[in-house]
């Protein structure tokens, strides 16, 4: 089945504030979309709406295909060595995480709580790739990464899309990718 992600007339309310409204988007195999906008516009909320972790205030989201999410929390056990923490997800997903490529191969014995912000982000990306899901939802994937790391993420997303996957990237930083679509949340502010 072709992976597909469609949102129709989405509106998001957090507390008493309507963050955005009348937002529609459609992504199919091979496409990537950057959601841009200043802080507090609802980028993360849009990602969580697309993931089905929040209920939309109005509108609907349709997904076909497995979803994978990276946000500001790596979802790894702090007290475990990195290798064991990733192995837990590996056992659930039955995929292999590319440790070497993400620069994590030398860190597998280090407990997650000692990792730096950038290393945690790389670890979360390793979990993401191991999940082998067609739809990637990335919330600020470049936070804490050095220039080499940024280039690496851009390359990984590019390969993922060429391989038939799709990606939604919520980021206020520039993201370089051929054929990247852009959606400015400020256009949908309520």
């Amino acid at each position, binding site marked *: 089945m072709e992976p597909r992600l469609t949102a129709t007339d989405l509106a998001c309310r957090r507390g008493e504030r309507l963050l955005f409204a009348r937002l529609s988007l459609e992504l199919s195999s091979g496409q990537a979309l950057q959601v841009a906008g200043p802080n507090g516009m609802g980028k993360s909320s849009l990602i969580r709406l697309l*993931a089905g*972790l*929040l209920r939309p205030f109005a509108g609907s989201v349709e997904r076909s295909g497995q979803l994978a*999410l990276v946000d500001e929390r*790596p979802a790894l056990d702090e007290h475990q060595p990195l290798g064991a923490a990733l192995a837990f997800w590996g056992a659930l*997903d039955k995929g292999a995480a590319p440790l070497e490529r993400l620069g994590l191969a030398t860190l597998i014995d280090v407990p997650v709580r000692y990792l730096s912000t950038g290393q945690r982000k790389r670890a979360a990306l390793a979990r993401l790739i191991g999940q082998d899901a067609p739809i990637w939802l990335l919330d600020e994937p470049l936070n804490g990464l050095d220039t080499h790391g940024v280039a690496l993420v851009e390359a990984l997303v590019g390969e993922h899309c060429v391989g038939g996957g799709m990606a939604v990237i919520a980021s206020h930083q520039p993201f370089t990718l051929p054929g990247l679509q852009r959606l400015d949340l400020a256009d949908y502010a309520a």
Partner: protein
Amino acid sequence: MTLWTLLKRDLATLLPGGRGGGSLLPVLFFLAVAMLYPFAVGPNPTLLAASGGGVLWVGALLAAILPLERLLAADVERGMFDQWALRGLSEELVVAVRLLAHWLSFGPFLLLAALPASALVGIDGETLRIVELGLLAGTPGLAAIGVIIASVTVGLKSGGAALSGLLMVPLAVPLLIFGAGSLSTGGEGGLALTAAISLVLVAIAPFAGGAAIRAAREG
């Protein structure tokens, strides 16, 4: 296979000596209560034998409160539950596995510790038998109440531990009444009722816990 992976991780965190800070503290706490009691009421063998079983029950209830604080909150904060949800693993399933792991991490140890504790409070073999059977029937219920409370207090930033304890006490009263009550009647009736309450609580806990964790996500 998925269930085993989840259970293995939960046990590695919760079992005494586990890396997640699981410890023997609840069991030591239970033994400490049994040790303090004779000092407090004096060395009167009749009084001790008559009331010792009930004290063990109170000790077990209080010991079950200790592991609650990090039982579910840590995984919610780390985003583990979000990741499980994306993989189609329901909150109910994860909470059911956590309930089993939670019970395994203190129930059997409490049953073992009841042996030396019975000597400390000076109860006879027959009373000990009823206490052990009662704890076997009642501790799954205590674990279930604990899981429900841990899921409801998941979003609390501070004061969760004290509140958990405060909520646990009234909810555990029915278990305590029938569990400790079976000592005075010496009968099967009390044990059967304790087991029945436990069963109901264990059946409710995954659904109550799952709903509470989903509700916290929307907050």
